[in-house]
């Protein structure tokens, strides 16, 4: 019997419109038996497939019934009914009024944990919206819970808006999807904080009325109630302060940042009380040993399961309540730090602030808040300064170009003004991008730094042209002054900083193999840091020339002697640090070459690539830069060839030379006037390395083929050799390292 279909043929509809087809056409024929029989005839490992479909395509298929890939499976395996909020109310599985204090505390704490889990990169559907109450706060009759639910929604909404606006996240950082949930948009922020405040006041009265009175025989029941009221009060207050702080951040005035800082400090004060009262809240009830998720009243981890895309199988692991307070306190610390940015006025200082902040690998919310605090609505820095003015100030601070000096005739020259203004305008976008890059996570930063070099190469070109034009103008007007390579020096400085950061971050991200260290450190010490130092000293002398001119003018008018005390050069600290870094890199380079000579660096069997391929890949982004010109592999090999020395140094000579470099770095750093943590971190590496390289020079462990290990724990860019650990410890017994 052949089953003939009665419906019209429409082969065009195979790919699309399946649902329509399903409804119209129920002519399904069961072929299970024949199909399975036919499959058995295939050979082992043979795939029967269309010409256009191969093993490669097959790989990207999700596997059904695999707990890790199949998001839909979980819902079907759990032996309970998954109810949404309305259904749960109807079936009385959930209370919307007369909740007990422990229930409220438990629900609030779980919500906080969900919020944190969301901020750490999970989807809203699997975190905050597993709480049924936030699906529709209008249905909640209990005022405290209603206010709290609205508060949580507002916090999510503002956080999401901030993160979206700052645009410093990638899919691994943050899930911005709301899955069509309402984020309490029908209620104003002010109304929600007002509701929270009302609940808070009411609770405060309750706390007071249950407080111990003098000479009273304390009923343990009342005492417990008192504690629970207090616990709830603290939570509601924390919620209100958190929300108010976030709302304050959305205001446009700079003063609001200080206000936000005060609010988060107040919120932080509540944390220890919240932590100590966690046990008052109810816990999840069900048996989790059978693979079910912990559930408690008001929460249904599977309620949104069908909203998730198929490639979204992971069940979000909500953080534990015990860790909640620690996370909040760290978050608040970060937000406090963010607020401090407004005290930095110089663009270079701001850039350093961003770099330093990023080094702690902060969360996406604090990173975003920093971005939105810096550039309010992408126009003005801190809402008050034009980016162009910031750049001019930075130029004055760095090279004191005549064109920006009040005392120079160029300052009021129209043509000169046009030149400099258009240059500064062109600078503002790349500099904003540079600052934005520092808001991304560490791994993405590296990638983006490589790309922004192209933009800086264009700026470099323009800077040199503007310098030349200004110089020829100045020669006509004030022949005794020069305008040589001022703007160019400044851009070059930033270029070099980006390049150095790009290379160094490879150590932090553990991208390089040990056999690659030597050329990376070579590039840094022999090339980039050398360029950086000459750039800084050129800027420094340009500043001095400008200062001399000013002094002469001042002296000309009043005979008073102004040149009395020696001023600290603004760039001196940076020059010193660069010297130290250069010595550290040089020391590492020489150590690596010597270790290689002793056969202590494992090299890969280059089959499909070569050292040249790797080298070129490592420095590929530098090819877009004109100044400094990229050093190609052949050049590098020539420049670093040891045979050009007579006699060529052996490993012992190199270890000794390395030791001297580390010694030098130590000397430089120990003379830094007020050492910052970074100085101490480098010293921590430099000191043992002096000893290790000396030992190696003395032939220690020369014959062992044990490969050295490098430990980057003390400093993320400079390791110290671990292989001589034991030797080092022995030495330490004799000469205590100081």
């Amino acid at each position, binding site marked *: 019997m052949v089953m003939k279909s009665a419906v019209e043929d429409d082969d065009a509809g195979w790919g699309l419109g399946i649902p329509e087809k399903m409804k119209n056409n129920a002519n399904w024929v069961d*072929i299970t038996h024949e199909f399975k029989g036919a499959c058995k005839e*295939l050979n082992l490992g043979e*795939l029967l497939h*269309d010409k256009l479909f191969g093993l490669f395509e097959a790989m990207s298929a999700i596997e059904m019934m695999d707990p890790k890939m199949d998001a839909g499976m979980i819902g079907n395996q759990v032996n309970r009914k998954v109810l949404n909020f309305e259904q749960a109310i109807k079936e009385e599985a959930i209370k919307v009024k007369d909740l007990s204090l422990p229930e409220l505390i438990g629900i609030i704490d779980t919500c906080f944990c969900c919020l944190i889990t969301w901020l750490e990169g999970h989807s809203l559907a699997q975190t905050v919206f597993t709480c049924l109450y936030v699906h529709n706060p209008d249905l909640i009759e209990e005022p405290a819970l209603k206010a709290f639910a609205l508060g949580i929604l507002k916090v999510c909404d503002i956080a999401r808006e901030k993160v979206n606006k700052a645009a410093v996240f990638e899919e691994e950082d943050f899930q911005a999807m709301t899955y069509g949930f309402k984020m309490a948009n029908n209620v104003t922020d002010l109304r929600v904080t007002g509701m929270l405040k009302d609940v808070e006041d009411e609770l405060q009265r309750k706390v007071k009325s249950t407080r111990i009175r003098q000479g009273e025989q304390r009923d343990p029941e009342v005492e417990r109630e008192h504690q629970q009221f207090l616990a709830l009060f603290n939570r509601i207050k924390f919620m209100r302060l958190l929300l108010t702080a976030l709302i304050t951040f959305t205001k446009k005035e700079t003063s609001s940042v200080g206000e936000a800082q005060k609010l988060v400090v107040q919120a932080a004060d509540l944390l220890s009380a919240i932590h100590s009262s966690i046990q008052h809240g109810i816990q999840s009830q069900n048996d989790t040993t059978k693979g079910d998720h912990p559930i408690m009243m008001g929460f249904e981890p599977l309620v949104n399961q069908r909203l998730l895309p198929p490639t979204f199988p992971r069940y979000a692991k909500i953080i534990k309540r015990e860790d909640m307070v620690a996370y909040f306190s760290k978050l608040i610390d970060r937000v406090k730090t963010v607020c401090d940015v407004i005290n930095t006025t110089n663009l270079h200082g701001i850039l350093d602030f961003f770099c330093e902040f990023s080094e702690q690998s902060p969360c996406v919310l604090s990173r975003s808040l920093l971005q939105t605090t810096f550039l309010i609505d992408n126009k003005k820095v801190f809402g008050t300064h034009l980016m162009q003015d910031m750049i001019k100030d930075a130029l004055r601070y760095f090279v004191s170009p005549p064109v920006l000096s009040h005392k120079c005739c160029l300052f009021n020259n129209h043509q000169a003004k046009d030149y400099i203004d258009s240059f500064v305008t062109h600078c503002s976008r790349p500099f904003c991008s540079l600052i934005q890059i520092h808001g991304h996570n560490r791994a993405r930063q590296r990638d983006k730094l490589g790309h922004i070099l192209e933009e800086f190469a264009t700026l470099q070109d323009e800077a040199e042209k503007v310098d030349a034009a200004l110089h020829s103008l100045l020669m006509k007007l004030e022949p005794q002054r020069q305008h040589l390579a001022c703007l160019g020096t400044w851009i070059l400085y930033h270029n070099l900083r980006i390049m150095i950061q790009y290379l160094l971050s490879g150590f932090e991200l553990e991208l390089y193999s040990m056999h690659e260290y030597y050329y990376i450190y070579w590039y840094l010490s022999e090339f980039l840091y050398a360029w950086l130092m000459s750039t800084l000293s050129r800027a420094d002398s340009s500043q001095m020339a400008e200062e001399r001119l000013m002094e002469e003018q001042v002296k000309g008018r009043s005979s008073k002697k102004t040149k009395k005390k020696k001023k600290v050069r603004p760039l001196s600290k940076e020059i010193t640090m660069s010297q130290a870094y250069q010595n550290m890199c040089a020391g590492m380079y020489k150590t690596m070459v010597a270790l290689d000579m002793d056969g202590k660096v494992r090299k890969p069997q280059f089959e499909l690539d070569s050292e040249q391929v790797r080298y070129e890949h490592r420095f590929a982004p530098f090819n877009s830069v004109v100044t400094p010109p990229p050093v190609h592999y052949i050049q590098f090999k020539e420049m670093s060839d040891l045979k050009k020395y007579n006699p060529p140094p052996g490993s012992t000579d190199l270890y000794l030379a390395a030791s001297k470099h580390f010694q030098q770095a130590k000397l430089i750093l120990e003379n830094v006037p007020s050492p910052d943590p970074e100085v101490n971190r480098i010293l921590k590496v430099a000191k043992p390395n002096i000893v290790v390289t000396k030992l190696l020079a003395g032939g220690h462990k020369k014959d062992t083929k044990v490969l050295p290990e490098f430990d980057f724990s003390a400093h993320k860019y400079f390791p110290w050799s671990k292989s001589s650990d034991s030797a080092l410890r022995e030495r330490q017994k004799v000469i205590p390292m100081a």
Partner: protein
Amino acid sequence: MATMIEENGPSTHEQSGVSPSYQARQKLEGLLNKNMRIRMTDGRTLVGLFLCTDRDCNVILGSAQEFLKSTDTFSQGEPRVLGLAMIPGHHVVSIEVEADSLEDAQGFGVNH
């Protein structure tokens, strides 16, 4: 003929030999890119284009949609789009195709 390993994909050349394995391949190839409905051991049903299978009856469906528990009525809410999905053979409970697609795939649905 039995030892021949068929080059995968719908073969256009006419073969006169009628070995069981050749017939089986012809049957399956006739179903390629046809709509298929598979019920799984947990009661869910997937509907999608048949793209690939092997000896263990693992099936890959393209543009697959997931329907909850029912087989005939789709009252249980909207289907969920899965895209490319592989159903392991041991989870396949039943396989159905649309009647009109059997015209091309000889040997299926025929009592023989």
